C-alpha cells in the first residue's frame, strides 16, 4: 500500500505516490535553484509544472488515477535538466533525448561498503555486506559460517581484516551510502545539508535556527521512514516470494490471530529459558576473561606454546559470540512473537539452525581435534578443582 499525495501542478490537481512526490519535488527544487538568477523563474517553473502535468495524463485513465515513481522518473528524464542561464547554451544533444538526463535526480547513488553496528552480532561486517548487497543479514551470516567451515578459519581472518579496514557508517549520509539508498532519501539529506550551508552563510536562508532544526528533523524522519519501508518491502519479498499480491507482514500492533495463543505461551517460556542460558554463558565468559587477564591462563589451563595473549583474547571473544549468536537470535525471535511480529518463526528457525551448526562444530572438534578434547578435559579438571567441591556431589 502506498500513500497518495495530491499536488497542484500550475493549478491542476494530480495524485502521486510518495516515491513520485519525492522525485517531483527534488526535480522542481533543482529547477528552482538552477533558475535562481532568472527574472522569470516563477513563470518558467509554472510552465514546467504544466508540461509535467500534461505528461502525467498520458499515464492516467479512469482505472488508474495515481502516477507512480517510475513513471514520474521517466517524465523527468524526458523533461531534461533545467538550463540555468536561460540562453539556450546547453541545448542537449539528440542522443540524450529519451534517455535519463545526467541532471535528473537519483539516476544513480553511490554505494559503499561500511560496517553497521546497529543490530550487529559482532562488529557489523556482515551487516554492512548485507546492506551493500541489499540481502538479508541472516543469509550473509549463514554464508560466512559456511565459508568458515570450508576454509578452515580463513574466512575468520577475512572477517577480522574487514573489521579493521572498513569504516563504520555513523552519519546519515554514510548510512545512505551503505544501503545505496534511493535517490529521494539521499536528495532529501543533501537538500537539508545545502539549506544548512545557506543558513551558515547567512545568505538565502531567511528562517531562524529553530526553523532549520525542525526542517532537519523532518528530513531525517522522512529518511528513516524510507529506510524502514525498503526494509519491510525486502522482508516481505524475501519471505513470501516476489508475488506482488502476496501476503504482507502484519504491521506491529495489529491484533494477532487467535491461533497464535499457544505460540505466545511457548515463546514466553522459551524466552525465559534462553535468558537463563544467556546469563550463564555470559558469566562463564566473563570468568574466563578475568582469569585470562589476571593470571595469563584460561581458568587454570595455561596457554599452549606459540599462542600469544592477544590471540587468546580474540579467540575467547569469537567463541563467546559464536555461542551467544544462536541464543540471541532465538531470544529476539520469541520476543518479537510476543510482540506480534509476523516473521518471528523464521528467526526462531534461524536460531535453531545456528544452534545445530554450533553443536555440529563442537561434535566435530571433540571427535577430530585432540586439542578440543584436551581443553574439555582441562575445563572439567578446573571445574572439579575450583567449583565442584563447594557444590557437593556434582561429580
Amino acid at each position, binding site marked *: 500500500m502506498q500513500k497518495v499525495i495530491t499536488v497542484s501542478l*500550475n*493549478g*491542476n490537481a494530480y495524485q502521486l505516490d510518495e516515491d513520485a512526490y519525492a522525485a517531483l519535488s527534488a526535480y522542481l527544487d533543482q*529547477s528552482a535553484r538552477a*533558475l535562481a538568477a*532568472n*527574472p*522569470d523563474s516563477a*513563470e*518558467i517553473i509554472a*510552465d*514546467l509544472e*504544466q*508540461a509535467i*502535468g*500534461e505528461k502525467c*495524463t498520458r499515464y492516467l485513465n479512469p482505472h488508474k488515477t495515481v502516477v507512480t515513481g517510475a513513471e514520474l522518473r521517466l517524465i523527468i528524464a*524526458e*523533461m*531534461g*535538466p*533545467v*538550463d*540555468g*542561464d*536561460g*540562453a*539556450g*547554451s*546547453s*541545448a*542537449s*544533444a*539528440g*542522443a*540524450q*533525448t529519451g534517455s535519463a*538526463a545526467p*541532471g535528473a535526480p537519483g539516476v544513480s547513488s553511490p554505494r559503499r561498503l561500511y560496517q553497521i553496528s546497529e543490530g550487529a552480532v559482532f562488529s557489523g561486517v556482515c551487516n554492512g555486506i548485507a546492506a551493500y548487497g541489499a540481502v538479508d543479514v541472516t543469509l550473509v551470516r549463514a554464508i560466512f559460517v559456511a565459508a568458515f567451515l570450508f576454509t578452515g578459519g580463513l574466512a575468520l581472518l577475512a572477517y577480522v581484516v574487514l573489521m579493521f579496514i572498513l569504516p563504520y557508517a555513523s552519519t546519515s549520509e554514510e548510512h545512505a551510502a551503505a544501503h545505496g539508498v534511493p535517490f529521494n532519501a539521499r536528495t532529501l539529506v543533501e537538500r537539508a545539508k545545502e539549506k544548512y550551508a545557506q543558513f551558515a552563510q547567512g545568505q538565502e536562508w531567511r528562517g531562524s535556527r529553530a526553523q532549520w532544526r525542525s526542517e532537519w528533523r523532518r528530513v531525517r524522519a522522512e529518511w528513516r521512514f524510507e529506510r524502514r519501508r525498503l526494509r519491510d518491502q525486502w522482508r516481505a519479498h524475501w519471505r513470501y516470494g516476489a508475488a506482488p499480491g502476496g501476503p504482507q507482514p502484519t504491521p506491529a500492533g495489529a491484533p494477532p490471530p487467535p491461533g497464535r495463543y499457544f505460540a505466545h505461551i511457548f515463546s514466553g517460556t522459551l524466552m525465559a529459558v534462553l535468558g537463563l542460558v544467556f546469563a550463564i554463558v555470559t558469566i562463564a565468559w566473563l570468568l574466563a576473561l578475568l582469569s585470562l587477564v589476571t593470571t595469563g591462563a584460561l581458568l587454570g589451563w595455561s596457554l599452549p606454546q606459540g599462542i600469544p595473549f592477544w590471540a587468546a583474547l580474540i579467540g575467547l571473544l569469537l567463541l563467546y559470540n559464536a555461542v551467544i549468536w544462536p541464543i540471541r537470535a532465538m531470544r529476539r525471535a520469541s520476543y518479537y512473537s510476543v510482540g506480534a511480529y509476523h516473521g518471528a518463526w523464521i528467526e526462531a528457525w534461524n536460531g535453531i539452525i545456528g544452534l545445530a551448526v554450533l553443536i555440529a562444530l563442537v561434535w566435530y572438534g571433540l571427535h577430530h581435534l585432540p586439542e578440543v578434547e584436551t581443553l574439555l578435559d582441562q575445563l572439567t579438571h578446573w571445574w572439579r578443582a575450583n567449583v565442584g567441591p563447594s557444590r557437593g556431589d556434582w561429580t
Partner: protein
Amino acid sequence: MPLDEKFSPIRKGLLEFLVLRIVSGATVYVPDILKRLAHTEFATQEGTLYPLLSKLRREGLVDYVWQESDSGPPRKYYRLTESGRTHLAELDAYWALINQTISSLGS
C-alpha cells in the same frame, strides 16, 4: 571525437535561430516545437526550451497568446513579434553569408 560532439557548441548556438524560425511559421505550442525538433540534430527538452523561450520573450522577439484547450488548463502559444521578424531576417541573411563562406572555401 564524434561529429555529434564536435558540433555541439554550434548546435547550441543555433537553437535560438531554429526556434525563431519555427515560431515564425505559425503560433505554436511548446510540445509542437519539441516535436518539430525531435528527429533532427537539434532535438531538445523542456528543461532547455522553456528558459530559452522566456529569454526570447524578455528580449521582445517572441510573445505568446493564451488558447483554451479541450483538456486541461489554457495553453501558451508562442508567435514572433515585429522586432522578432526583423531580427530573424538579419539572422537569415547572416546564416546565408556563413554558408557562402563555407562553400567558397576548399575545393
